[in-house]
Every structure is written in C-alpha cells, then in structure tokens.
C-alpha cells in the first residue's frame, strides 16, 4: 500500500514499517490511539488524587485556603493559559496536516507547539522564582499566616510541578518528532496521533488548574 502525499519539500515518502502484530498501518494507528487513551485514563486518576486533596482542604479550611489562593500571580497564569491553548491549536494543525499529507505544515506546527510549550515553561519558571522571593513556599517564614493557606500553597507547588514535568516530557517528544518529520519518516506514523492526544491532555489539566489555582477566592 502506498500513500500519496502532496507536500512542498519534495522529499520521498517512506513506507511505514508496520510491526508484525499489525496487518495495516491503520490498525497500528488505532492500537496506538487506544493505548494512549488508556494511558490518559491513568493520568486522569493521577491528577484526580490531587484534585481530591484540593477539594477536601478547600472546604475544611476555606478561609485560609482562599487567602492563600489570592496570592497567586493571575497575570502570569493567564499569559500561560493563552500560550498553552495556542500550542494546542498548533498541535491540532499538525495532526490534521498529517492526515492531509502536508509535511511542511506538520513539522512547522510541531516546532511551534514545542516552542510554545517551552515558552510556557519559561514563564512558569519566572513565576516560581517570583513566588519564592515572596516567601510563598510553605516552610519557615511562610508569607501568609492563616491556617489553610500553607495547604493551598503546598498543593500549588505539587500540582504545577507535576504539570511542568508532564509538559517538559511533551516538549521533548514533540521536538524530536518535529525533527523526524522533516526527513524521511512517513506522515502516517501513529506517534503523531498519540503525542497529539498527550499534548491535549496536558493542556486540559492546565484548564482545570488555572481556575483552581488562579481564580479561586477572587470572585467579588
């Protein structure tokens, strides 16, 4: 089976190497997608445990918890949200480009995704340094006195830290994929679909984190 593609780099399109278990590339893609969805289910439960802790402490120590929540930097958080949502857009474009056989679009959008992801991490790193200089790490000399604020900030560091780790892994994989896509790899490899799913998941986690961490306690 050959794949006909129209692209602007005039590189030959390689046949995908299908592992023995699968008869067709479509089967392999379907399997990879299924496997990634299963993995994302585990990630939902992983972060779900954190959301549970957040919910419990939000209600048992409401005043202090929300006092802590008001100390996050909503400007930087919002900038990051815009960056990450845009990166999801570029990722969608990359995946769609893969379906249509547009090699140039694919690797450029993947590169843009990686760049935006890295930008997110840079802003986050800056935000963390600001948080630390404002003594918002809940150990000695913690800035906010109310009981419950340190619980919020403990969860803040764990949640944003874990999200950051997941995003970093995503950036590394997307960068590698962008590099491969410039060359002889077929556009129909299952990696494009699976990394697309993973990236959107990391973005979705952020969509939950943003209101929980930046918008809590700020309603009039």
């Amino acid at each position, binding site marked *: 089976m050959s794949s006909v593609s129209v692209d602007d780099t005039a590189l030959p399109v390689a046949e995908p190497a299908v592992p023995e278990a699968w008869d067709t590339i479509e089967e392999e893609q379907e399997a990879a997608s299924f496997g990634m969805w299963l993995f994302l289910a585990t990630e939902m439960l992983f972060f779900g445990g954190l959301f549970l802790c957040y919910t419990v402490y939000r209600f048992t*120590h409401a*005043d*202090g918890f929300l006092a802590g929540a008001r100390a996050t930097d909503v400007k930087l958080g919002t900038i990051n949200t815009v960056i990450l949502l845009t990166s999801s857009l570029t990722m969608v474009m990359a995946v769609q480009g893969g379906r249509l056989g547009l090699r140039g679009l694919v690797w450029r959008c993947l590169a843009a995704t990686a760049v935006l992801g890295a930008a997110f991490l840079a802003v986050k790193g800056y935000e963390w340094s600001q948080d630390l200089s404002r003594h918002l790490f809940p150990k000695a000399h913690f800035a906010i006195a*109310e*009981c419950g604020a340190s619980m919020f900030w403990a969860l803040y560091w764990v949640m944003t830290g874990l999200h950051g780790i997941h995003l970093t892994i995503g950036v590394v994989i997307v960068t590698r994929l962008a590099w491969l896509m410039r060359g002889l790899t077929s556009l129909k490899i299952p990696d494009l679909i699976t990394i697309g799913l993973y990236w959107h998941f990391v973005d979705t986690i952020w969509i939950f984190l943003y209101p929980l961490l930046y918008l809590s306690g700020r309603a009039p």
Partner: protein
Amino acid sequence: MNSGLRLFPEEASTQAPATDTLFLILMIVSAAIIILVVTLVITFSLRYRRGTKANRGPLRDIISREFEIGWTAGTCFLALFLFWWSGSADLSTLVPPRDAMEIHVVGKQWMWKTQHANGAREINALHVPVNEPVRLVMTSEDVIHSFYVPDFRIKRDVLPGRYTETWFNATKTGTYHLFCTQFCGTEHSRMIGEIVVMPKDEFSKWLHEQPQSADISKEGAALYASLGCASCHEGKSRVQAPRLAGVYGSAVHLRDGRIFTADDAYIRDAILEPDKHVVAGYEPLMPSFEGLVGDDEILRLTAYIRSLKGKGRAG
C-alpha cells in the same frame, strides 16, 4: 490473667456479648459453608474420579440455570442479612450514654496518659469502676496510635490534632490488657498498659487517694484568666465576644449560616483556628492561640468551659 493456652478472650464489657454473638453466628454460617463446599469437593472428587462408573451425562437446564440463580440469590440474601445484623449491632453502640464518666486519653510515643475528670492522672493504666459507662476522649501528641482493649472489644485510633471518642461499660472486675494497635514507631509493641476494673467503692477510695493536681476544670479556670480570655469573653469589654456560660453542648449559629454543636472539637477549633467558625453577629477578631496552648491545656480549658452553667441551655 492466666498464662495458659487461652482460646477466647474474656467478655468484660457490655459490648463484648454483642460482638461475640455476631462472631458465633458468623462461625456457624462459615462452618456450614465450609463443610458444604469441602463435602461436595471430596464427594465429587471420589465419585467422579477418572474410571468410575458414575453417570456423566450433560447437566439438566434446571441445574445450570436455576441452581446458579438460586445460589446467587441465596448468597445475596445472606450477605444482606449479615449486614443488617452487624449494622444494627454497630448502630446500637455508636452513642455513649449521656451520664458516662469522662476520661481523657493522650497517646504519645510510646506511652498512654490518661486523666480522670477530677484531675487524677495515670500512665499506661486506667482505673475504672465496674458497671459504669466510661467515655474516652482521646488525642495524640505525635503520630496515629490506637487504643485497644481486647477484653472489652473496643478500639479507636487516636489522631494528632483531633479528638476521637469511644466508650465502654466494664462488667467484670479484673485487670485487662491495653494495647496500642496502630504502628507508631520503634517501641510500638511496648506501648501497652492495663485497664483495672474495680468495684465502685474501691474505685472511689482509689480515686481520692490519687495525688490530685486539682480538678482539671479549676486548672482550666486558672488558664482562662492567665491567658486573658476573660478580657473579651466576660464583663464589659470594648471587643464583643460570645459569652461562654452554658455554651458547652449547645447549638451555635455561625456567620455563614451553619449550625454547630459546641463540643470538644468545636472548642478546640475556636481556640486554635478562631476564624474557622465565626459566630453569627460577631466579627472574626479572636486571635489564634496556636503554639501558645498545648493539648493538655486545651483539655483543661474545655473542662472549665464545660463546667460553666448558663440559663436555659444544656448544662
């Protein structure tokens, strides 16, 4: 306690017979089921072992369908029946009797500190009168421990930063084991003590003989004054604070509309995290005494507040 081979603990409290009856019922049910299964397995293994001339035709539908549904339903009913029995037994012992004698217990690595209402203190031991309900209000100074008296069939974890409660009514005089039964560190297995159940007159004698560090509620009154609580909660102060006479055990209306019962846990929160449950009609002005009062002192203050009777409220 004898050290021969015992196979069953003593029944030394009012709760023990209920637990043991339930145990016996479950033993009978279990024995019946085990005997049934083992008999069937052995019978089938012998009768249908390869080479015997038993009938081996296909199963009639009634066996493969109705039997299956039948024993599924039977097991369901048994499970629900046992839940109903055990749940009722549990519910009937949830609430301690109103007039129960109160003992405060503090667990710490690796000892038990108990204190009677009149101030008498014990380490790794608790003397109680026979046939009188005893309510244990417990907390921990460090990690989670668990207060376990096998012969009474009671057990409750003790947690840091919180109160947990259990109760018993000892029915037999004697000395019984007290074990810590939540792993708490190196000397967990040495954190054991004794519950000594005495006839009532002997107990009164014993209690009066204890070195009394004053009634803990008197100590609580002293703390109340020295910490300056009266300056807001009594008399005419510029700062309005709720009056505490009769408050213990009554319903408190909070600013956010919730209604709380002013029990030990509520008073503890009010002292350590006053902003958590602000009373309706008052501002959140009370400072926190976190770090200024320890668990022992909170117990005394609570005892004092409990002793304050007021008009028209539960005393």
